[in-house]
């Protein structure tokens, strides 16, 4: 009978119920959208931050021997250790491997470039652009054994005029920093010579090598003064086959500490050490916290607004139904039956509002994701439960005052004809 009563009572007052559902839906939609964004884009916001560079630097471990001079160790002055390029795939075999968004090695060499009048020293950087890495022993059989990575994965925020080097076997293309382009008056498509010293035993032989500009990089950082080529080009020029100086790793991680990445990488490649860029991580966490707090605040305000909407609708409903409630009481309805009726209505409003709120919220989150983070938001079905729970909670809480009012209605109201 309660079901029949509810069904007919809701159908009879469709417009009121729809208003209440819309109120709940708006709150639930905002809560769902922001929750989806904060869960999904939490990572994607992290990704945005990753655009500003790697957050983990892998460098060779150096055994240092103190020489009695504060700050000067034998290791640091004698030991020019390098990392084997053939070990880099191991970075993708740590337990947090799925959070390794990318990594790229760097091999540095100071070379000279002629501006027509004089030669200037410039740092040549060998790195990966679009490198296919074969993971020889994947962590799990389900893991993709092929991983494509490169400097653009880590530094996707760089402004590039022209194009990135796309072929990993390209030996003549170079990407140059903006300042290099200015100093040497180079544009896309221009060729230029680099000069470098080749050591043959104790003898030094100066050689030159021709490169063609395919892209000009602008980062407002030290990269503007550098020339980037494929790693093997730099390795060949500097006679350091299969070697790299450092590896930058972009660890996508909100909940996990980047230190764990470092530790695991050190376990996989024992002669390296991982240095986290803690400062960046802290800034990132701080900003993420602020964003999340703001989202929470907006959600709370939205939910309060929905609660007020539901409360107003329910109050109006109680006032409109005073006689009906009085009648129900006069024919024997105890307060708990009246309470059950109204709370059941509130639960229905909450469930319907919650489901619709989830759908609308998901659409909103997609729009925000596309516009603000240039990404889609992964649907999370657990959020629908959260949305329903929040909506039912809001609906029930906002019904307390109207229901208390309903309970106070006297049955005599029916006979008094008020």
């Amino acid at each position, binding site marked *: *009978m309660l079901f029949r009563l509810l069904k007919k009572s809701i159908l009879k007052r469709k417009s009121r119920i729809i208003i209440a559902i819309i109120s709940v839906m708006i709150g639930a939609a905002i809560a769902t959208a922001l929750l989806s964004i904060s869960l999904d884009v939490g990572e994607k916001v992290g990704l945005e931050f990753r655009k500003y560079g790697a957050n983990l630097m892998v460098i060779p471990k150096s055994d240092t021997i103190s020489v009695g001079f504060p700050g000067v160790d034998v290791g640091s002055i004698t030991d020019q250790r390098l990392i084997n390029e053939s070990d880099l795939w191991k970075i993708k075999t740590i337990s947090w491997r799925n959070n390794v968004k990318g990594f790229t090695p760097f091999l540095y060499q100071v070379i000279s470039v002629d501006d027509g009048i004089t030669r200037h020293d410039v740092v040549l950087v060998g790195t990966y652009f679009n490198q296919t890495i074969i993971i020889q022993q994947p962590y799990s059989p389900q893991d993709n054994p092929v991983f494509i990575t490169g400097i653009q994965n880590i530094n996707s925020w760089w402004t590039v005029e022209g194009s990135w080097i796309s072929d990993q076997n390209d030996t003549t293309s170079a990407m140059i920093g903006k300042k290099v382009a200015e100093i040497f008056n180079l544009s896309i498509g221009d060729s230029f010579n680099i000069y470098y010293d080749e050591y043959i035993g104790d003898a030094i032989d100066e050689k030159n090598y021709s490169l063609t500009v395919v892209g000009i990089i602008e980062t407002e950082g030290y990269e503007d003064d550098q020339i980037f080529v494929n790693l093997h080009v730099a390795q060949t020029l500097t006679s350091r086959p299969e070697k790299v100086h450092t590896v930058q790793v972009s660890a996508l991680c909100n909940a996990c500490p980047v230190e764990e990445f470092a530790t695991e990488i050190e376990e996989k490649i024992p002669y390296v050490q991982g240095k986290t860029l803690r400062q960046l991580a802290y800034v990132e966490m701080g900003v993420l916290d602020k964003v999340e707090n703001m989202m929470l605040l907006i959600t709370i305000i939205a939910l309060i607004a929905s609660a007020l909407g539901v409360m107003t609708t329910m109050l109006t409903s109680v006032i409109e139904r005073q006689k009906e409630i009085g009648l129900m009481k006069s024919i*024997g*309805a105890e307060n708990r039956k009246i309470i059950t009726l109204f709370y059941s209505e509130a639960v229905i409003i909450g469930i319907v509002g919650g489901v619709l709120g989830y759908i609308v919220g998901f659409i909103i989150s997609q729009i925000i994701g596309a516009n603000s983070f240039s990404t889609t938001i992964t649907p999370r079905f657990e959020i629908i439960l959260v949305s329903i729970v929040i909506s039912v909670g809001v609906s029930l809480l906002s019904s307390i005052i109207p229901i208390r009012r309903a309970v106070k209605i006297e049955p005599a109201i029916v006979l008094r004809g008020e």
Partner: protein
Amino acid sequence: MTENEIIRLQGIKKYYDENTHVLENLNLIIKKGTWTSIIGPSGSGKTTLLNIIGCLDSATSGSVIIYGKDITKLTQGELTRFRRENIGLIFQQYHLIPYLTALENVMLAQYYHGVVDEKKSIDVLKRVGMDHRLNHIPAHLSGGEQQRVCIARALINEPTILLADEPTGNLDQKNGEIVLELIKQLQKEGHTIVMVTHNPDVAKLGQRTITVIDGKICADSSCAIEINEKFEGIDEMRYKIDKLTGEVDEEGKDNLFYGEDDLKKRIDEKIKKR
């Protein structure tokens, strides 16, 4: 309380505030299986009296004893249960839930009483001649039909007391007669009927008519014994005055009693005229 007594009101007062005295020191005994009509002008307090008997309203002071139980001492929940089990209500405006069918309106009273039995509801509607309109909503029923559904709802939980507030007030003569016939039948079956009405002809269908004016019982067709002691002895005087003013009815009986103050005023007026 005698064996035949079903309702006893003692010293009932109902004040809404200092200046609004609805019922004044009212005493009344209603016997089992009788039909008592309450008449009186608008605002006289007769509906309030019915509300108090029906456990819908509480008295400011005095006691209401139904089936030997003083209901003024019951909590709100106990009152609701007591009403549900013992009292059926018939309203002038029928007060059916507009979005429920005739059958569902009757079943609703069952739901509040405990178990819903659709067959029993159909039987009761059949009894009031409404079995052909089971699935019609009130808006699709005539006034008389709605009133019969209201009576079916009042009967569904088998109460012994039926309280009716102007049950024919909104009905045409034909429908009014059908409803009154039904109520008469119910009384014959043993229900105790208390009916508020404006219509003296309807009131006369009962065994007893009580006239309420300004919150006091001013006349009781059965006897004046239960009326407050201060009215004792003036019954005869009233008869004499009414004889003088020609307000005695054809049978030589007078159901109208105007109260002590009014009586004195009218005697003074008659004396002045002479």
